[in-house]
C-alpha cells in the first residue's frame, strides 16, 4: 500500500512523547504486580512442602494449594492421583516438586491470554510502553511471525484451564468436609474453605470471560438468534468478558493468596478457624 510521495514523520526515540500525564505509571504498576506474582509463584512451586494442610487428621478439613492441584505425584497423605514421591521418569539432576508437573498449564493460559498479552507487551517488552509513546526498537514482527505467532495456541490452554476449574472446585468442596471428634465426617466451614471456594469462583469468572471462550460458545456464529443456546451463552460470556481485566487481576491475586494461606496453615504459623 503506497502511503504517499511525502515521507512519514520519523519514529520517536524511546520514551519520547508530547503526553503530559503520568503515562509510565500504569505500565510500572503492571510490571510490579506481575513480577511480584512470578517471584512468589516460582518460589512456592519450588518449595515442594507445606502445599497440603491435612486438617482431617486434626479435626479440620483438607486443603490443597491451587499451585499443586491436581496432585499427580506427591505426599501420600494428600492422596496423589498417580503415585507417591517422585515419578520415575523425572531426571535425577532436576529438583522435583508436584507443582512443576502442572503449573505450565495455568501459566500458559495466562501467558497467552489476550488481556495479559497486551499488558506485558507494554510493561515488560515496551512494545509500546504506552499509547503514543516512543518505542525502544525499530524492528517489529508482532504476532504475525515466529515466535509470537505461537500465541495462537491460547484456545488449547483454555481447554486445560476449564478442566483445572473443575478440579479446583472439587478441591474447594473437599474443603467443606470436616472430621468430627467421633471420627465421622460432616459439613463445616473454615476460613480455608471460603478462601478455596473464592479461588475457584474468581478463576471461573476469569476463565469464562476469556475471549477464546467467547468465540467458542457463540462468537464464531454470525446469527446469534439462529444458534439457540449459543446465542444466550455468547451474551453471558460477553458480560464477563467486559470485565476480563478485573477478573484477571482478582484471580491472580487470590490464587497466590490461597497458596499463601494454605502454606501458613500447613507450616503451623496460623490455625484455620472453623466458623461453622
Amino acid at each position: 500500500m503506497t502511503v504517499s510521495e511525502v515521507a512519514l514523520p520519523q519514529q520517536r526515540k524511546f520514551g519520547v512523547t508530547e503526553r503530559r500525564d503520568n503515562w509510565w505509571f500504569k505500565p510500572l504498576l503492571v510490571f510490579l504486580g506481575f513480577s511480584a506474582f512470578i517471584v512468589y509463584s516460582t518460589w512456592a512451586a519450588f518449595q515442594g512442602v507445606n502445599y497440603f494442610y491435612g486438617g482431617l487428621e486434626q479435626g479440620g478439613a483438607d486443603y490443597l494449594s491451587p499451585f499443586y492441584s491436581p496432585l499427580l505425584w506427591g505426599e501420600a497423605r494428600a492422596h496423589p492421583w498417580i503415585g507417591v514421591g517422585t515419578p520415575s521418569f523425572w531426571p535425577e539432576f532436576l529438583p522435583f516438586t508436584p507443582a512443576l508437573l502442572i503449573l505450565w498449564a495455568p501459566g500458559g493460559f495466562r501467558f497467552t491470554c489476550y488481556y495479559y498479552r497486551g499488558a506485558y507487551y507494554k510493561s515488560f517488552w515496551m512494545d509500546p510502553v504506552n499509547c503514543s509513546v516512543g518505542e525502544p526498537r525499530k524492528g517489529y514482527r508482532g504476532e504475525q511471525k515466529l515466535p509470537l505467532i505461537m500465541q495462537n495456541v491460547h484456545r488449547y490452554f483454555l481447554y486445560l484451564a476449564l478442566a483445572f476449574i473443575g478440579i479446583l472446585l472439587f478441591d474447594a468442596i473437599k474443603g467443606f468436609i470436616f472430621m468430627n471428634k467421633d471420627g465421622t465426617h460432616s459439613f463445616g466451614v473454615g476460613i480455608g474453605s471460603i478462601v478455596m471456594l473464592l479461588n475457584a469462583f474468581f478463576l471461573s469468572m476469569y476463565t469464562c470471560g476469556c475471549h477464546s471462550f467467547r468465540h467458542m460458545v457463540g462468537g464464531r456464529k454470525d446469527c446469534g438468534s439462529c444458534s439457540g443456546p449459543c446465542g444466550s451463552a455468547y451474551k453471558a460470556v460477553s458480560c464477563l468478558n467486559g470485565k476480563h481485566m478485573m477478573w484477571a487481576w482478582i484471580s491472580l491475586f487470590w490464587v497466590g493468596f490461597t497458596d499463601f494461606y494454605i502454606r501458613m496453615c500447613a507450616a503451623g504459623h496460623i490455625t484455620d478457624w472453623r466458623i461453622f
Partner: protein
Amino acid sequence: MTTATFRIWRGTGNEGSWEEYPVEISEGMVVLDAIHAIQTEHANDLAVRWNCKAGKCGSCSAEINGNPRLMCMTRMETIDTSQPVTVEPLRAFPRVRDLVTDVSVNFRMKKSVTPFTPRKPDAADGTWRMKQEDVDRVQEFRKCIECFLCQDVCHVLRDHHKHDEFIGPRHFVYNAALEMHPLDVADRTSDLKKRDGIGYCNITKCCTAVCPEHIKITDNAIIPLKERVVDEFYDPLTRLFRIFMPKKQEPAATPEEIGKVIDG
C-alpha cells in the same frame, strides 16, 4: 477569561517547527475554537481540516498534548493550561501542511476489503429478514466516523510504518462489520491473515482508548477476527472437525436479485 498558550506544529511536509500563540479562553470553548481564534488573530494561513464541529465527521483529528483526539470534542476545561497546549498533526500519515495530513492511504486500504456480499434474498421481492439482536452486534462497528485516530495511535502504523502489510484498527472494524453481518456470506479470513496482517496487532488497546465513538475495537472487532483466523489456519482440531462437518457455503445474491430492492 484566561489566556492559554498554544504550541502548534507549523510547516510543510516534515519540515517545520513549533510556534506559540496566546488565546483567550472563554467558557465552553473546545480546542478547535482556539485554533480558529489563532487563525483569526495571529495566523490566518494556519492549515486545519474541520467540518461538522459536532464529533461526527471525523475531520479535525489531531494530537493534543500527545493524545490523538478530535479537536472539536476536546473541551478546554479538561486541559491543563498552566503549560503550553501542544497541537500537532497525526503521526501515522504523511504531513501535508500544518495540522493537515494526507489520510488517503486509508481509502485505498478500505477499497481492498471484500465488499458486503449478501446471501440470496429471503423473500421473492428481493428483501431479507433479520432479527434486531443479530444486527446489534455489527451496529457497534457502524458508529465509526473514520476519524482515523485509531490508525494514528496504533504503533504498527505510527512507529513501524507497516502500511504495506497492515490495514490497521479502522479497517479491522470495517472487516468485522462485514464478516459478522448475519447476511454476509463472503470469507475474509485468508485476507485478514495474509494481506491485512492482523497478526501484527499485539492487543495494546490503544485504538479502543482513543475511539471517540467508544467502539470496543480490540475486544469486539480485532480479537474475534483473530479467533476466526485461528479457526481457519492455526487450530488443527477445528480443521479436523470441518472435515466431518464442513462449513455451509451459502450462495451469494446476484446483482440482479439485489437490484430488485434498489429498483423497488
